C-alpha cells in the first residue's frame, strides 16, 4: 500500500518537473496570439518571427560567441589549475582552493552587482569581453572540480614514465595525461558552455541592448510584452540543453567505461 502511494507520489513529482517544459512545445507552434491550451491551430509563424528578427539573431550569435569563448578560457585555465592542484601539496593549497571555489558560493546577485560596479571603472561593462570574463570566472570552478575528479583516477607513474623516457613535460602532458583525463576535461567544457549559455543575472547587469544574449533578450521580452516568439526562443534553448545533456551523458558513460577497463586491466596484471 505504502509502496503504491510512494510510486504515485514520485511519478507526480517527475511529472511536475517535466510538464511545464513540455507545455511550451505546442504553444510555440500555435497559430494564435494568445498563449493558452488548446491551441487554435498549428503554424511556424513564431519561428519565422525568431529567425527573421535581427534582435533575436544577434542575441543568439552573442550567446554562442560568449559561450564558446567562456568554454575555451574556462577549460584552459581550469585544467591547468586542476593539474597544478593535483601535482603537489604546496604551501597555501587550502587557501587557494577556498579562493577558487568562492565564485560558486557567493550569491550570483552579489557577484553580478560587484562586477558591474568594478568593470565600469575599467571599461569592461557593456561589452562582450566583460561578459566573457565574468562567465569564465563563474564557470571555471566546475571545470576544476570535474578535472580534479578524473585526475584522482590517473596513475601518476605514467607521467613519471614518460618523463624518464625523455619526453618534455608539455609533450608528456599532452600525449599521456590529457587523453586519460579527457572525459573530465570534456565534461567540464560542456558544463562551462552551458553555464555561460544559460546565465542571465550577470548579463542583466553588464550588457546593454547591443550585447544582449539569448536569455537577456528573452528576459527583456518577458518584461515588455509577452510575445509568442519567446516560446519559440524557449524551445530552441530547451533543444540546445537536450543536446548538451546528451553529450555530457555520453562523455560520462565513456569515462566510466574507461575507468572500468583500466580497473580490469590492472586486476589481470596482478
Amino acid at each position, binding site marked *: 500500500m505504502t509502496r503504491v502511494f510512494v510510486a504515485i507520489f514520485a511519478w507526480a513529482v*517527475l511529472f*511536475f518537473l517535466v510538464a511545464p517544459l513540455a507545455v511550451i512545445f505546442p504553444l510555440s507552434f500555435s497559430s494564435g496570439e494568445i*498563449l493558452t491550451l488548446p491551441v487554435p491551430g498549428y503554424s511556424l509563424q513564431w519561428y519565422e518571427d525568431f529567425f527573421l528578427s535581427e534582435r533575436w539573431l544577434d542575441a543568439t550569435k552573442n550567446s554562442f560567441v560568449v559561450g564558446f569563448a567562456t568554454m575555451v578560457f574556462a577549460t584552459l585555465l581550469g585544467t591547468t*589549475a586542476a593539474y597544478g592542484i593535483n*601535482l*603537489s601539496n*604546496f604551501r597555501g593549497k587550502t587557501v587557494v582552493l577556498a579562493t577558487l571555489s568562492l565564485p560558486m558560493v557567493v550569491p550570483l*546577485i552579489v557577484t553580478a552587482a560587484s562586477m558591474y560596479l568594478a568593470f565600469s571603472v575599467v571599461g569592461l561593462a557593456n561589452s562582450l569581453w566583460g561578459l566573457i570574463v565574468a562567465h569564465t570566472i563563474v564557470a571555471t570552478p566546475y571545470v576544476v572540480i570535474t578535472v580534479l575528479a578524473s585526475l584522482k583516477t590517473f596513475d601518476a607513474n605514467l607521467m613519471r614514465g614518460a618523463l624518464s623516457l625523455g619526453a618534455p613535460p608539455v609533450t608528456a602532458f599532452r600525449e599521456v595525461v590529457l587523453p586519460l583525463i579527457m572525459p573530465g576535461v570534456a565534461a567540464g567544457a560542456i558544463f562551462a558552455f552551458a553555464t555561460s549559455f544559460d546565465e542571465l543575472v550577470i548579463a542583466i547587469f553588464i550588457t546593454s541592448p547591443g550585447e544582449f544574449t539569448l536569455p537577456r533578450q528573452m528576459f527583456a521580452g518577458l518584461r515588455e510584452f509577452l510575445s509568442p516568439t519567446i516560446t519559440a526562443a524557449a524551445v530552441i534553448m530547451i533543444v540546445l540543453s537536450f543536446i548538451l545533456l546528451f553529450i555530457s551523458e555520453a562523455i560520462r558513460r565513456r569515462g566510466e567505461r574507461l575507468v572500468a577497463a583500466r580497473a580490469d586491466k590492472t586486476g589481470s596484471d596482478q
Partner: protein
Amino acid sequence: MSKKSRISWLLVAPLLALVLLGFILPIGYTLVKAVENPEVTAALPRTVTVLDRWDGEGMPPEEAFAALVTDIEEGQRGREFGSMTRRLNFELNGARSTLMQTRRSLDELSAPYSESLPAAIPEWGEPQLWQLIRTNSNPVTASFLLRALDLQITPDGRIEAVPEERAIFIDLFQRTFWISILVTLICILLAYPTAYYITTLSNRAASIAILLVLVPFWTSILVRTTAWFILLQREGPINAGLLGLNIVDEPLQMIFTRFAVYVAMVHVLLPFQILPLYSVMKRQGTDMLRAAASLGAPPWRQFLLVYLPLTMPGVAAGAVIVFMLSVGFYVTPALVGGLQDQMVSYYIAFFTNQSINFGMVAALSLLLLFFTGLLIVIARKLVPNLDTTIKA
C-alpha cells in the same frame, strides 16, 4: 620550495590571478562602498573645512555661509554636485531640492550671506542642514548599513529607527529567509520519496526517471521560469483547464503572487535536492533496512531509526545548495512575483540600475554575504562531512 610546488604554483597562478582581479577585487571594491562617504567633502570642500571648526551648537559662523556659496558657485556644473545632493537627500528628504533651489538663486545673494541665504531659502536658517553636512564630512559612514537594518542617524548624530512607512529592509530580509526556508522544506518533502522510489526501480526505469530530473536541471532557469510565467497567466493554460472543467467560475489570479514564487522556485531548485539524495541513497542500498527488518523492527521504526539517519547527509547536502541558491534568487521572483514577493536581490538590482545608490547596493550585498556565510558555518557544524557529500 620544492620544484614540484613551484610548478604547482605556476599552473594555478593564471586562474588565481583571474579570480583575484575579476572577482575578489570587484567584491572588495563594492563592499567598501558600504561605508565610504566621499560625496559631501568632494562637492563642498571649503564648507566642510569651516564646519569642522564649528561645534555644532546653534548656527555656524558667516564664514561657513560664504564658503557654501563659493563651493556651490564653483562646483555647480560638476558631477560632484549632483552626487552630493543625492547623498544628502538619502539622509534627509528634501535636502536635494533645497540645494537645487540654492543653486538657482545664487545670483540674488550678496554678503553677508548669513543673512541673505536664509532670507532666500529658509532651510539654511535652521541648524539641521548644516549639522547634516558636518556629520557627512566624515569619510566613513555607517548610515547605509544602518539603513539596511531600518535604522538611521539623525542630523545631530543619534541612531534611531526610520519612520514606519520607510522601514522595509528588516521585513525584506525576513521575507527572503522565510521564502528560502519554505522552498527548501518543500524541496526536501518532494525529493525524499522521489529519490527513494528511483533507487527501487530497475536500472532501465531508473535511468529514465533520472533523465526526467536531468532535463529540467540542464534547462536554463529562465526558460523554466518562462514556462511558469505562461502557465500561470490569467488567460494561461492552467486557468483555461480549470475553467473548462468547471472547477472555478472565473480565472484565478496566480501570476504575480507569492504562490507563483513558491511553485516556480521549487520547480527550478528541486533537481538540486533530488540528485544528491539519490546518489546517497543509491550508495546506501537497502541492506541496513533488511537487517533492521530481520531484527523485527516495524517499517516506521526501520525508516525513522535506520534509513533516515543514514540518508541525512544527502538531505543536508541538497538542502544547503537549495537554500543558498534561493537566498540569492533574482530572476524567478522578479518575473512571477508581485512587488510584495521580492527578495533582497531585487533591491540590489533596483539600487544598481534604477535608483543609483551604490552605498545601499554594498550594504545589502554585505548583509546577504554575511548571512550566507553564517549559514555555511552552521551547516558545517551540524553536518561534519558536508563538503565531501556535496562533491560526491
